[in-house]
């Protein structure tokens, strides 16, 4: 079974968020989107179980994104593909690009994080599924292949609780936080990664052009809440909630 994992380069969520324009401040440290790391980890575990034979990592972006492609290879992905595009894209553009790539690579399953922690849109996986007319399982916290890998059973995390669905293959799966905990990558992984290829493709080579339809005009910090007061006792709290806040 061939798995394609799509991942995105995002600013390290631990760092102070960069402010200004829509584009990334390039000096900020970048990482693979944590949800995509979970996707890669799951693909690796599926292969370790003997259920997959090849894992391909795919991303869209400028040459700086090769850093994340190498990180994905260091985790254990077999090959990495970067579709070279330095523009600020929107999820629909990314989905269309990935659709063209998938037509070329023909994986049996596509796994990716449910959302990118910088953009928080949560769209690409679902849009891709719609474009391909493939079944989808989103916000997945457990993956199990059935029937000799012709079907997959997924547990999904929804507002109401957990839901279990089954889909045929090929399908799109987007990962939620509790699916797994990604492995730590250190020197041996990085050494092995050096021997693995990063293939660079362009949209032309994939036979398509896309134009982002959404544009970010500006980014700003929301107004901060004013600092509140420290109280000394339960009685004082109840009094304040009743009389000052009028919420009780």
């Amino acid at each position, binding site marked *: 079974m061939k798995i394609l994992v799509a991942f995105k380069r995002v600013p*390290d969520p*631990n*760092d*102070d968020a960069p402010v200004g324009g829509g584009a990334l401040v390039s000096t900020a*440290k970048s*990482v693979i989107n944590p949800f995509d790391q979970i996707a890669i*980890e799951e693909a*690796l575990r599926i292969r370790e179980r003997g259920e997959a034979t090849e894992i391909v990592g795919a991303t869209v972006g400028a040459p700086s994104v090769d850093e994340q492609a190498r990180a994905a290879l260091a*985790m*254990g992905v077999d090959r990495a593909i970067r579709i070279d595009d330095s523009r600020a894209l929107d999820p629909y553009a990314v989905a269309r690009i990935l659709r063209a790539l998938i037509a070329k690579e023909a994986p049996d399953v596509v796994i990716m994080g449910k959302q990118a922690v910088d953009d928080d849109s949560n769209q690409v996986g679902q849009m891709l599924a719609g474009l391909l007319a493939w079944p989808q399982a989103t916000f997945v916290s457990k993956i199990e292949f059935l029937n000799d890998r012709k079907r997959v059973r997924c547990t999904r995390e929804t507002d109401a609780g957990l839901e279990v669905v089954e889909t045929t293959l090929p399908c799109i799966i987007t990962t939620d936080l509790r699916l*797994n*905990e*990604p*492995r*730590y*990558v*250190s*020197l*041996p*992984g990085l*050494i*092995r990664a050096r021997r693995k290829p990063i293939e660079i493709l362009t949209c032309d080579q994939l036979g398509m052009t896309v134009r982002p339809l959404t544009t970010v005009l500006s980014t700003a910090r929301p107004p901060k809440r004013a600092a509140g007061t420290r109280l000394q006792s339960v009685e004082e709290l109840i009094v304040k909630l009743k009389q000052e806040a009028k919420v009780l």
Partner: protein
Amino acid sequence: MNSATREVFGNIAPWMQVAFFILMAASLGWLLWQVAARALLWRKGLAGGFERDWRVWIERVVTYALAQKRVHRKSLGAFLHLLLFSGFVVLTIGTTLLMIAHDGPVDFHHGWYYLIYELTMDVFGVAFIVGCVLAMYRRAFRRKPSLGHNSSDWWLLGLLLSLGLTGFVLEALRMHYTHVQPPVAQWSIVGWLIDATLLRRLDVGYAQTMHLVMWWLHAALVAVFFATIPVNRFLHVITGPLNIAGRPERPMGALVPLRLDEVEQTGRIGVSEIDHFSRQQLLSLDACMECGRCEDACPATATGKPLSPKKVVTDLRGLMAHGGELHGQTIRAETLWACTMCQACVQECPVLIGHVDLISDMRRHLVGEGKLSGPPARALQQVGNQSNPYGRPNSQRLDWAEGLNVPMVESNPDFEYLLWVGCAASFDPRAQKVARATAQLLKDAGVSFAVLGPEECCTGDPARRIGDEFLFQQLAQTNIETLARRGVKKIVTPCPHCYNTFKNEYPQRGGKYHVQHHSTMLAELVGARRLNDGNGGDHGDPITLHDPCYLARVNGEVDATRAVLGADRNSQFREMPRCGKKTFCCGAGGGRMWFEELPEQRVSRLRAQESVATGARTLATACPFCLNMMSDGMAGTPGGENVKVLDIAELLLSRQTLSTPVVPNGGEAPHQYTS
């Protein structure tokens, strides 16, 4: 008296003597053959790793093998071992001397020498037998679980006891049929007593025959004893001294560095097969006689985790001898992750086995192969990306100092001491108070110091302990460059892990500094009256001290913390049962600060119970991780809710406001301090 002596081989015909020597040669040969076979197993390991300096060998063998430094303590086991050891050594020397006297150029085995010899041998023979009996008693009725029991144990004890007993029976029989009389007889006191009582009416001819039989029995037992040494605990008599001599000399707090080029070549890191250990490490596995003291001291074992240092050694030994798979089968990952690297096992081991190094080597493999995930993986990722395990932007490293006006290296380049705050005291809200207290005290005392602020990066201790050696080396490189750029020569730090890393591990990378833990500097300042000690004497509530592992055990520093607390003048100061260099871990070491732990398995809870049992209302400590862990531990322990957990700097700072101010810069104090 000068003619007092005895015949050697008196009853033994020449052809029997030849047979005897052949038997001895065969059994010794068989012993050597088996030892050589073990040595071939050790040889499968990586070359080197042995101590090369013969002077160190001698010193170590004398201290640990002869003087038995690590064995002595107040216990039945230590006592009986002393009897067995001294008995066996003296009897062996005695037999050797007898052989030299008999076969050598000069026969000195007569006269006063002979009489004293006989008495000495008898006394130590009794000691040996008493030791055997005590060992049997202990094994039958008072055996601690960590001692374990192998099928060969009764066999060995029985054999040793028989050797002792037959030896005396032989002596008595010989004295009987050779008519040894007092006063000479009384020097062989035990033999004489047996002869005078049990053998009194024995026919002399009959005695001689029995002597021959008993002699051959004794000889056979000796032969069997030699031949079976390698398959029972007694092997440690050979392998123990070998490891004691051969163990490489390295500070306890320093792990073995790895070389990048080696890893690039072999493509592997750490130990994944038994033969990736060094030959010395493999030898050390055979030195273990399973006494179980390491297990007794281990905080992981004490909290029910799947780690026993003894089992790690014996499991690896089994793997070495019988083959198999190392990771997953012989040693599980949970076993390796459970270690806090407190070094209690290493400290206890009478034959100097390095359990922590074994575990560290195996951890490095797991981390290198991507087998680390979850909170510790996140912590290491954050160490790599944000230069601290908390994942906070390094630009916030001075937030703890808000409002304190702490001098920074940038604006105070002529500082004398660098106050290295460490990640915990920089970012952990609880530990930030330690940073503040320390900085305040240094300012009050007029010490010339400065902090690096955002230039400070994690020393790399968590990376090295958890198992990413190269992340550690990267951070060390960065820090060493920063320290060089800022002209740092002296460092003082409130964190024992940073202290240990600077003192014992950075020199491996070329960074050499004069490093002090803040307890040392604070004790000096109090001693020089540059800081108030709170007028010594009672301070009211009972107080006890938790010695941090990496300060007390690993670096042997126990006095400064007590001096800061004024322990010797405070009648309310109590020591915990496990204190000083034999302190008990808080559970945070070995990177475990970043691992998740089931509440019922928390090492900190166990230690908190120990503290609560002293009746102390304040628990002092000297490490930001201990502070964190013990605060948590107290919260989860009955009786602990009312115990205050404080760093010695916080306690000392609170005493600064109690009495008259001191003269900064070490000037003469203008007036006496009243209590």
